[in-house]
């Protein structure tokens, strides 16, 4: 499904450049549930954004569903984001002046789905998230957990193949986090690939596979319970 080969990326900096991804090789198969862990500044978000076609990379190769993503035009990238990918952000990123229902329906607008159909599917999706009674609420009228449910509903509305979530529980308390993770597990159970960036061990533990980044390279990659061992190569102490 997703294949990264020798991905390198650096940010331009005053008087030079800051390498952030220093040769990432990564394969993620359809239906996996992967956690990306690592200390702050290790490049987790950067990696996820590259995977989500929200950001570019300097060298290496990226195949999404067998198609090379290097040198993709802006329009083609938009099409992949629209059809393959769904995003969940730490800060929810709901559009403030649209209701829950309209937020969920928006990705379908960019797929040119008729309005009636959009509303219907958005309502169904909100129902699945247990949010159908809040459909006409504005984001400002929702709790953090509710906002994230709406955001997940919005990410799922287009039936994407991959959900990319950057610290989806980062702004939530532990009970709500558990609920959101429950939802994401259900999403994954339906066959959708889920990739979650987190620095919470118990979140990573709820995934099947964990990748640990350190200073722009993958230092560990394996079954979740094993990678997050506190003693694992001393990585924990750098968090």
């Amino acid at each position: 499904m997703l294949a990264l080969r020798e991905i390198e990326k650096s940010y331009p900096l005053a008087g030079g450049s800051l390498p952030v991804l220093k040769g990432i090789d990564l394969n993620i198969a359809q239906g996996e549930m992967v956690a990306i862990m690592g200390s702050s500044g290790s490049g987790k978000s950067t990696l996820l954004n590259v995977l989500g076609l929200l950001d570019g990379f300097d060298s290496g190769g990226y195949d999404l569903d067998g198609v090379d993503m290097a040198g993709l035009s802006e329009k083609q990238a938009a099409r992949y984001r629209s059809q393959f990918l769904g995003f969940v952000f730490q800060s929810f990123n709901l559009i403030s002046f649209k209701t829950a229902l309209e937020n969920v329906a928006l990705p379908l607008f960019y797929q040119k789905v008729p309005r009636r159909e959009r509303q219907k599917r958005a309502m169904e999706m909100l129902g699945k998230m247990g949010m159908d009674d809040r459909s006409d609420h504005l984001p400002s009228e929702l709790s953090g957990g509710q906002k994230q449910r709406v955001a997940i509903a919005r990410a799922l509305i287009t039936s994407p193949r991959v959900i990319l979530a950057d610290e989806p529980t980062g702004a939530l308390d532990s009970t709500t986090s558990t609920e959101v993770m429950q939802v994401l597990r259900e999403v994954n159970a339906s066959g959708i690939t889920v990739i979650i960036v987190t620095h919470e061990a118990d979140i990573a533990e709820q995934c099947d596979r964990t990748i640990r980044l350190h200073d722009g390279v993958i230092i560990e990659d394996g079954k979740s319970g094993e990678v997050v061992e506190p003693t694992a190569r001393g990585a924990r102490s750098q968090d």
Partner: protein
Amino acid sequence: MFNRETWIEIAHTVTANPLRTALTGLSVGLGIFILVVMQGLGFGLQNGVQQDFGDEAKNSVWVRTGRTTLPYRGRQPNRYVQMRNEDEQRITEQVVDAPAWSGRRMMWGSTVGYKNEQGNYPIVGVEPDFDELELLPLKGGRWLHADDMAKESKVCVVGENLLDELFKQDDAIGAFVTLRGITFRVVGHFSKNGRWGNSMVYVPLTTMQRVFNGSDEVDQMVLSTGDLDLEGSKAMVEAVDGDLRMRHSVHPDDVRAVRVRDNQEEFAMFDRIFTGIRLFIWIIGGFTLLAGAIGVANIMAIVVKERTVEIGVRKALGATSGSILSLIVIEAIALTLISGALGLITGVATLNAVAPYAEHDYFANPEVNLRVTVTALAVLVVAGAISGFVPALRAVRIRPIEALRYE
């Protein structure tokens, strides 16, 4: 691009930011409003002055006299200077070479009767050339002939107000009316623009002098300057003025006793004034437009900045740059167009509401110059579109993640 979905999206974002919508609306609407009102007032002034000129021919010189205000050559002031037939004859035969001329004498508030109807109208004695000096479009019958002058015929040409008020259904041509108790035959009628010009009853000057007061007095003289240029007409004015002052012993500085007015010169003067007014309006209008355009540009720049994260979110959800660009540009166009139209409507409504109270000698029909206004509106809409497009282009060009991270 222009489908219903887009419009719903736009309606949404427009109503979602009422303050921004109000600000844009104000800067554009106010600009157009000021422009419309300024234009209207300018035109009102121009119309008023032009109406005041009436339908006098541009190439005519009007000669009037009054009481002296200065002593001259042993004569006391406050003496009335009266022109007579001999003055007219001398001036037209010896002093100047005018292609057409007419003496003029007026009797205000004269009773005019027809059958059982009667009313008060000014009777004006003129010569046949007069219809070359003032526009009197004939609607029926004929104008006064040289023959009428020679024979001192009791014939008259009436304005259309008399048709309505006296003759009603009857045919006026050939009808007999009494002017101050004396019977005249109507030979023609005319209709001209303006309010009271149509109440006039024109009779031959000779007939008036004979029938009403048996004198040879002439109140005014109108001379055509033909195709003389401003220089030539000025020379003509000076010649007439000098002759009358000499004959009637009027002080050269006495501006009341002898007044010779050159329409051509006055037209030229008003032309300069109007050019000035138009220029002034253009400058004010230009600045108003500029202010409106800058206002829109500012607001759109802020709006796009504020919406950078939203643009990033939309891109993450699969929006193409084109769809975001068109959303913002159409939104900017819709906003400026609607506010501009509102400004135009309120401007026109204001002018229409004010017009009836603003009737004055030098002010009439403050009409709206639609061409200028629509051009102004188009300029603002284009400015709105550009000022939406430029920052939006900048915002959609950056990678989605940069937009998402924007603070």
